[in-house]
């Protein structure tokens, strides 16, 4: 969680939510959450577990480079 929020601090285009999934069961269903922590970046990149900073960064950059939903062919 800290990594996501620190990245939000670092860049104006990045926003980061902590979501307590038991309070929002519809999101658990939407994102197929069976284990936590689970991270979803821009609806396109999903991963489970706590990962090192470099790996987290890689996922964020991957999502940032992908075209936003709706612009895909």
């Amino acid at each position, binding site marked *: 969680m*800290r990594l996501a929020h*620190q990245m939000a601090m670092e860049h104006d285009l990045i*926003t*980061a*939510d902590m979501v307590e999934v038991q309070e929002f069961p519809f999101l658990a269903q939407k994102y197929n959450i069976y284990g936590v*922590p689970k991270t979803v970046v821009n609806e396109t990149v999903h991963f489970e577990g706590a990962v090192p900073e470099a790996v987290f960064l890689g996922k964020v*950059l991957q999502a*940032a480079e992908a075209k936003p939903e709706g612009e895909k062919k």
Partner: protein
Amino acid sequence: MPLLKDKDRDLLKDKLAKELASPVKLVFFTQELECETCHIAGQLAQEVAALSDKIELVTYNFVVDKEPVAKYKIDKIPALVIEGDKDYGIRYYGMPSGYEFTSLIEDIVDVSRQSNRLSPKTKEALQKVTNPVHIQVFVTPT
């Protein structure tokens, strides 16, 4: 009954007295009905705000206060925004308990100091981001 134990509250007060620099605003969104955890999350926000004169708590009603709900792009409650000299895009949806409570305190310190603890390499790499990035981290109470 308070959520924070006396001993923890004293420790946190000391920590924040030492570490906070600029004022921090906690913006909390809630509603009276049909929100099981809003009350307790609101109590936690109040107790955190009471830890330091530099922490201000502003509470809005998710149903009534449409302008701030739109401004902060809040889509569910309870929601907590940590804002400093600007809104950095830091949100907590639901009750930050256990490990997430520690994150909340550390986030408040970072926002107050306008600095974070990412590595220089990560900071440099993030400058390449030119599209909006929305990160959601799903957790359970610990």
